[in-house]
């Protein structure tokens, strides 16, 4: 087996015959596991001047940047940016094809002033760019682009040079990786983490819904790194914590076992408080801190009421403290590496514990940390497995899957009344329970705890709450109920997930389609132009089906059509689902549902389907979806979007995901055992 132009950049995993993009002059091929790529002869036009070695290297690096930024998603023959000067060729491109692209492309390069080149100013959004900011200003990726521009100004300017930058190298992931993350050593505890921690430490916690909402942007995974509490959140949290402390302090006082008086009681409470504070802060207290904290017990020992007041004040102090509300991942310098720091033992334990259980490290994990055993990958995996097997660990895995699917917040109660009128008042809670149960059955009871199974499981179909949605509805004007066409399966068709990505009324194909493309395929859809709604065509001819009507309305310009083609068909397949997940039997036009479609992935592959069930099956078994899940795991573990320093880890996890059909434990084991798990990317 020979990989043409394979560059030995250390991504050996990518050479294992898994999901390799093939170099040569074509775009990468997508290969089934075990399949080997077919080498292609180099295509070179006669008489082309070769680029200098320096330019060639810069070109290959730039190709990787373009690949990760997902430029091909729009800048391809059938993409929304097909009529621009930048076009990535198809995988079967010939030398003549590159020649055809050559002339227009060089208009993007300003050899007099490389920094003014449209090739630089557009993707960095210094000027308007329909696809938004694909390369961050000041980022290492931009530096690669600048280096290439600075080299290429000396020439040559031919199709050979063009080929270097438009064909992605084999060592990079063929699915695009969006580097939108901002590293931070500061991790805010999420609502789930606060509740879990209090449950662990006190056996009681405020309701999740009482706490200030987690700050969320869009429907993606929750970002906790570099996300401080704002002034209004601090004040809102204070009211909740004070109220909580007031409610539970008497009960906790009993729990302390301190039943003395005067000095003996103060001493007993002080010891309890010291122990508790160490666990709350995940570190030992300095003497001045301890003195301040214990001063809260100055009045204790005189009466149970005074003791209760002191406990109350202690709880407010501990649980409003920044040392509790934020986790710090400071790390220590690594010799010769400026952008990474090595986490200290307790920090590794904290990261591992919060990933595994959404709560703090237990005594066994802390003991392993203190003994220096967490630098051993096998020990980390052992600890992780141990924690994952606990009730909290299982809950944490369920929460992650819901976060991945953008469904960790209940949305059913926000739907219009007419969709809820036949449902019990607690339907939202029951639907959540059903989704949690489905995930649990796949991850903890099934032989195949895989992404594929999560997307294919039918175990929830018999859940009482869900049967209410599946069975024929009572509204004779709008008959609902699953049919053969529905083929309901997997979490994507679960009411908890559908409700998370639908509007309060009717169908939401655009929202669902964009979500599928982003969360499952890791190919985010660029934001619509600000005036998209105003641009929509009106006066649709009568008699159109819902889909035909939407296609008519969005067929304004080739750009609109191109962009919608990339995600709308995914949503059209789910058009019959109403906002709470019922299957509407008929389109309002009385025409048959048209649920078939096709979208082109950034790799050039066409994903075709004739029904929602087929779409789900194809997604469930697609290696790109498995890889994308692995990306989500990295984001979840680090509490942020990806940064370039994550590339190697993401590549390795993608390989694991593809090799194992998206085996969830295998992905997490690979993540926890990776050296990157012991490091933090720093901005310092």
């Amino acid at each position, binding site marked *: 087996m020979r990989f043409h132009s394979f560059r030995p950049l250390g991504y050996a995993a990518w050479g294992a015959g898994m999901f390799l993009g093939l170099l040569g002059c074509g775009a990468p091929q997508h290969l089934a596991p075990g399949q080997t790529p077919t080498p292609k002869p180099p295509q070179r036009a006669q008489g082309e001047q070769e680029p200098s070695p320096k330019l060639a290297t810069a070109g290959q690096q730039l190709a990787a940047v373009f690949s990760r930024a997902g430029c091909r998603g729009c800048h391809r023959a059938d993409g929304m940016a097909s009529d621009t000067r930048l076009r990535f060729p198809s995988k079967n491109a010939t030398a003549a094809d590159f020649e055809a692209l050559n002339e227009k492309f060089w208009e993007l390069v300003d050899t007099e002033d490389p920094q003014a080149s449209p090739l630089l100013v557009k993707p960095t959004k210094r000027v308007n760019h329909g696809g938004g900011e694909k390369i961050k200003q000041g980022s290492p990726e931009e530096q690669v682009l600048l280096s290439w521009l600075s080299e290429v100004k000396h020439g040559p300017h031919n199709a050979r040079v063009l080929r270097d930058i438009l064909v992605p190298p084999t060592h990079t992931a063929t699915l695009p990786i969006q580097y939108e993350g901002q590293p931070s050593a*500061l991790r805010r505890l999420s609502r789930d983490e606060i509740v879990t921690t209090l449950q662990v430490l006190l056996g009681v916690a405020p309701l999740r819904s009482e706490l200030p909402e987690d700050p969320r942007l869009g429907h993606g995974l929750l970002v906790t790194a570099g996300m401080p509490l704002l002034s209004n959140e601090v004040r*809102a949290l204070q009211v909740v914590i004070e109220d909580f402390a007031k409610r539970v302090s008497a009960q906790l006082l009993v729990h302390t076992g301190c039943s003395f008086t005067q*000095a003996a009681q103060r001493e007993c409470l*002080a010891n309890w408080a010291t122990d508790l504070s160490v666990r709350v802060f995940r570190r030992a207290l300095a003497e001045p801190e301890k003195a301040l904290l214990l*001063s809260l017990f100055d009045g204790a020992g005189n009466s149970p009421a005074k003791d209760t007041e002191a406990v109350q004040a202690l709880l407010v102090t501990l649980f409003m403290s*920044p040392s509790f509300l934020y986790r710090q991942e400071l790390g220590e310098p690594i010799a010769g590496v400026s952008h990474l720091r090595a986490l200290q033992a307790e920090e590794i334990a904290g990261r591992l514990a919060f990933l595994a259980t959404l709560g703090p490290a237990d005594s066994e994990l802390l003991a392993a940390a203190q003994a220096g055993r967490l630098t051993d990958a096998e020990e980390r995996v052992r600890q992780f497995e141990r924690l994952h097997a606990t009730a909290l660990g299982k809950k944490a895995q369920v929460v992650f899957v819901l976060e991945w699917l953008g469904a960790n917040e209940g949305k059913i109660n926000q739907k219009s009344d007419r969709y809820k009128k036949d449902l019990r008042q607690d339907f939202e809670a029951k639907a959540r329970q059903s989704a949690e149960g489905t995930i649990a059955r796949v991850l903890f009871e099934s032989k195949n705890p895989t992404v594929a199974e999560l997307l294919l499981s039918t175990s929830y179909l018999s859940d009482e709450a869900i049967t209410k949605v599946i069975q024929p509805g009572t509204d004779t004007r709008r008959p609902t109920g699953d049919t053969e066409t529905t083929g309901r399966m997997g979490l994507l068709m679960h009411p908890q997930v559908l409700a998370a990505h639908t509007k309060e009324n009717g169908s939401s194909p655009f929202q669902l389609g964009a979500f599928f493309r982003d969360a499952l395929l890791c190919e985010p859809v660029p934001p619509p132009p600000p*005036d998209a709604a105003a641009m929509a065509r009106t006066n649709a001819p009568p008699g159109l089906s819902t889909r035909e009507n939407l296609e008519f309305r969005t067929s304004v310009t080739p750009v609109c059509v191109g962009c919608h083609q990339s995600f709308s068909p995914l949503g059209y397949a789910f058009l019959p689902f109403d906002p709470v997940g019922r299957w509407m039997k008929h389109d309002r036009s009385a025409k048959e549902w048209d649920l078939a479609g096709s979208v082109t992935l950034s790799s050039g592959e066409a994903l075709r389907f004739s029904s929602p069930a087929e779409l789900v099956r194809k997604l469930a078994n697609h290696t790109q979806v498995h890889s994308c899940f692995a990306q989500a795991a990295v984001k979840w573990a680090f509490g942020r979007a990806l940064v370039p320093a994550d590339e190697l880890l993401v590549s390795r996890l993608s390989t694991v995901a593809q090799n194992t059909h998206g085996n969830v434990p295998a992905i997490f084991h690979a993540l926890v055992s990776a050296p990157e798990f012991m490091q933090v990317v720093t901005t310092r």
Partner: protein
Amino acid sequence: MKPSFPPTSRTSSHISRRSLVANTALSALLAPVLRQRDAWGSELSPRRVIFIFSPNGPMMASGPVSGTEHKFKFHEWWGPLARHRAEGIFFSHMAATGQGVVKGNGHGLGGQVFSGYGAGFGGNQYANMGETVDQVIGRRLEAENRAGLVRSLVWGLAGTSQAGGTGEGFCAAPGRNISPEANPKRAFAQIFGRFMDPSGKVSLSAAEASITRDRSVLDFLARDCAKVQSELGTEASHLLDDHCTTLRSMERNLVSGFLDNPALNACQKPRQPAERDWGKPEHIEPQMAAFNELISTVLACELSHVIAFQFAGQAARNRLPEHYKVPSSAKVDSGDSGPAHHPWTHNDPSAERTVALRIFTRFYATQVASLLDKLKATRDAHGKPLLDSTLVVWASELGGNENTRDPHETGSLPVMLFGSGQGTFKTGRYLQGKSVDTRPAGLRAAGEDMARLLVSAVQYMGLPDVKTVGATMVDGPLSELYT
């Protein structure tokens, strides 16, 4: 063994009996404030500001009044405000802040009417791009020790979690929407929860112990925040600014400032709002009444000088009680339906649409009018009506006029300013905005005027160095406002 309780200088400091007695009438033992010291010693009251955001827009009418500057009549939809004619400056045909300067359109632009930013980022064109002016003012007042107990408050009848939509009307940082507190009982708890029972049932020694304990708590929290900040270096120093400043301010307010504050002596603790499901539209009227009470008390007691209030968030699907008889909209292109504000803005013109939009606009106007009544009736520590020193700015997310069919009209914006600011602003006038010229230049000029209006509000709050808002690039206040 006797436990060790090392004394600390701050937590063991004595609160004098005199200082406690000085506050007997005011019930605010634990909520003293720093006041705008520059105002005391003069006859002027401290300055206050309220920003009001109403969602969506009237769509079919461009402003509250029409006529000439001094001779104008009220549009029927804004009729409830006619009784405040003398205290208002009424604009028609303004435009979303920075229109034509800041990129964006629709809710992504109109929703940021109080910040002067444009279209969103990260795949979300609706995301707020930067802080709103209430936050700018509050932060500065706090830094200058003249914010009061709370530098700014964001309250409302509904946030997006209650009424849906694309985001909130107020924002603390890029992408960091502020969910307004829509539950008056919780809003009460945040401000007045620590106030002691004024009936005198709490003994002075208990009060003293309570204050001492709270000071210990806040002292610990502020020190802990500083510790975390210092450990994380410059990055976290920036990130935790807001958190640590809030804690320091809470601590400072406990430590000093309440002994000689006439405002607190004069104010009465409001009645605690009842516990009920405040998210239900049926409760909107008592909800608004409770907030009017809270707003006027907070301002009169100088617990805060800056309040942001939203009827609902951007593109909200907010509803009114059934007795308003809002017709139910069929499903529209935006996917929503029912007797809510947003779907009616997406309907084609019809008599029913006019009815619905009139009901919503009149509802907002009625509530603003009753808030103004309350501000007129409430006296501050100087014995003057609150409205004398309180500037109220009400802007709609979107505008509209009889001719537009755009459900996202960011021109033709109705905007109102109430309160003369103790003679700063020349009220009782109608000013026609420049978006009456619907060409880009007209829209741009109106958007810049809106930005200048916000600069005027910021400068009124004693911040004359602030000359622009958001990304609008304007460089000064709106001169037409002044006497």
